[in-house]
């Protein structure tokens, strides 16, 4: 009886109570057990798989990546031929995925913002049209929409020999849209450099104008100056080097068009499908973001004498963005992941290439692992960027 009060008086940190009575010890023990159990399950699955693969004599490992692929890929951003390795074929697929995802994200954001604002328009017709758009597109399965766009391209346009030519050098056929390509000239490096300089100068002017306004209250036409710098500087450089310019026009040779740039029906269908579908969701996010800003903010800002454009830009949008950005991030991730539906319409994205690879080599586990690693990396990168942006626009409490 006498010892008990002594135990109780001991300060909790000094104790070296190693029995299960100690909550800290217990907590650690549970963690070890749980981690151990999870580890065992993983070990069981992995070892069982390896054993089964061995008994069935199915090849394993990533050695196939160095072998010649022999598989044809319809479109590629880098030079590729079937004589290249599987690793390069997969890289081509990865670039194709990134291409459609990045362009898709930019276009879906633009279209979604426009439709979202249109839904709030006081013009009845515009608001209803936007509403019909949103309700139609977000309630139809994406795969169906992709097949729709692809079939439309395939069946609506004539063959290459009867191609429509709406503009000189532009052809529309069921092989896609052929555009003239601008050929790279030796002086274009300077023009590109001038563009970078122009952007840098515009940013500097903006900073200077902001500081001056804060100090003196005087305003400066930043927008016009910036546009002049960004487009004027490279424009003058272009003229200074003698305006070299050459177009490579697509020509019908044999079965297909050769030369110029090609926008294939598969890419076009995938891009249009992803953009219009995702834009419907982004539109609703934008609408909710704008509605989330209290009407009083508008009134107060107008009362301060700001113009409507300024109210939107300086007061409403910064607040709305804080509501808009997190759910939009999910939509960007969805768009990227949905791009894997490309396999249904024959666009050679990473899933399509990896699927063929795993089929030719028979190494399904490795192929699926590559696909998962690719999407995980892309998705986490997008998340990281959007989280950074979200922190950037978050309300700074002073």
């Amino acid at each position, binding site marked *: 009886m006498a010892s008990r009060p002594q135990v109780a008086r001991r300060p909790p940190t000094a104790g070296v109570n190693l029995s299960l009575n100690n909550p800290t010890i217990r907590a650690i023990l549970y963690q070890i057990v749980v981690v151990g159990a999870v580890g065992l399950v993983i070990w069981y699955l992995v070892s069982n798989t390896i054993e089964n693969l061995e008994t069935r004599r199915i090849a394993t490992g990533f050695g196939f990546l160095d072998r010649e692929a022999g598989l044809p890929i319809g479109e590629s951003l880098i030079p590729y031929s079937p004589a290249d390795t599987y690793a390069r074929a997969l890289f081509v697929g990865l670039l194709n995925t990134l291409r459609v995802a990045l362009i898709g994200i930019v276009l879906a954001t633009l279209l979604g913002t426009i439709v979202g604002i249109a839904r709030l328009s006081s013009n009845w017709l515009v608001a209803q049209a936007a509403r019909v758009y949103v309700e139609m597109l977000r309630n139809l399965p994406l795969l169906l929409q992709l097949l729709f766009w692809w079939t439309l391209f395939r069946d609506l346009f004539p063959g290459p020999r009867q191609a429509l030519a709406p503009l000189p050098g532009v052809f529309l056929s069921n092989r896609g849209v052929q555009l003239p390509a601008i050929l790279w000239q030796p002086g274009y490096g300077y023009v590109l450099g001038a563009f970078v300089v122009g952007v840098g100068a515009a940013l500097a002017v903006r900073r200077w104008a902001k500081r001056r306004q804060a100090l003196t209250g005087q305003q400066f036409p930043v927008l016009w100056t910036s546009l002049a710098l960004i487009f004027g500087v490279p424009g003058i450089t272009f003229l200074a080097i003698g305006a070299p310019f050459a177009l490579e026009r697509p020509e019908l040779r044999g079965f297909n068009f050769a030369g110029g740039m090609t926008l294939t029906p598969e890419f076009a269908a995938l891009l249009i499908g992803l953009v219009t579908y995702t834009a419907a969701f982004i539109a609703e996010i934008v609408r909710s973001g704008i509605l989330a800003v209290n009407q009083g903010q508008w009134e107060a800002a107008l009362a301060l004498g700001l113009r409507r454009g300024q109210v939107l830009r300086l007061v409403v949008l910064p607040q709305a963005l804080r509501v808009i950005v997190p759910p939009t991030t999910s939509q960007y991730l969805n768009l990227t992941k949905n791009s894997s539906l490309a396999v249904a*319409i024959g666009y050679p994205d990473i899933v399509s290439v990896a699927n063929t690879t795993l089929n030719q080599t028979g190494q399904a586990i490795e192929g699926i692992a590559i696909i998962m690693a690719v999407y995980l990396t892309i998705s986490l990168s997008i998340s990281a960027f959007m989280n950074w942006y979200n922190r950037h626009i978050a309300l700074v409490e002073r």
Partner: protein
Amino acid sequence: MGQERRVHASGTTFITGKGDMKYLGLVAAGAALMIATAAPASAQQSTLDAVKSKGFLQCGVNTGLPGFSAPDSQGVWRGLDVDLCRAVAAAVLGDANKVRFTPLTAQQRFTALQSGEVDILSRNTTWTMSRDASLGIDFVGVNFYDGQGFMVPRKLGVKSAKELNGASVCVQPGTTTELNLTDYFRANNMQFTPVVIEKLEEVTGAYFAGRCDVYTTDVSGLASTRMAQAPNPNDHVILPEVISKEPLGPSVRQGDDRWADIVKWSFYAMLEAEELGLTSKNIDEHMNSQNPAIQRFVGATGDFGKMLGIDNKWAYNIIKQVGNYAESYERNIAPLGIERGINKLWKDGGLMYPMPIR
């Protein structure tokens, strides 16, 4: 007061601690069980026993290739590959209708067989060395000797595959077709634009819509597609060049030799019956035949069925219920307008040569 409360608290802690100890023991037991089950994971039930106990054969076939495997207007699967599955079901279960079909795309087929989703893969699959050696499957025979060809719309005026430089070519991924195609164009120093689409209906649809100039697959597949899907079959020409050997045959999982034997001999039985002149119509008349080869075939003498672990009337059941190879060919492939050609029996100048049943 504070002391008492502390004592009380420690008491309850002790009790819960004991409860958690029990739980801990449970987890440990579970983990031990897992270790125990992990060890003998490789011991598998034989396919024959599995098929017998579930009472039906699971057969992987093409999603829809008339002549080889396609559902008819009543939803019944018909075709040369389908008949092979029915033959195995007749041999093993005594009933050719105890088959369930799993339609598989070119990309799904090997995984479906490897994972045990199907018992046989009978899906116009080319027997190649890399597939035989590295996929964990075994090919057991060739039920159709084929070769890869090209089909083009007649109005293009193309006469030879050598004129196809620059063409857009529709092709299914994950096939030997895809690899032969690149080989052929590389060997002839020609360029092409591939349009690679997984689903058969989509890829043929793309060809007929004019998305590609050329559709390439096995010649039998071209004929089948042209017959079944072209609005006017005469508008499309199959070019004379056959650019590859495509021995199409059934395959089973590697490591189950008994099952491989059953499938192999079920197919040989269909050929042997043709050689012996046995058909689904006349086999009953031959039950009392004096020909020793026929006696062995119908199970009147010998233990050939028992050697495989199946009914001794296995071959009789196959021929009675499914028919011999010639009957299956006439029923399925001949309507596509494909000559028997190299798929004739060896004694008629073809490549079909059943190993002797004795």
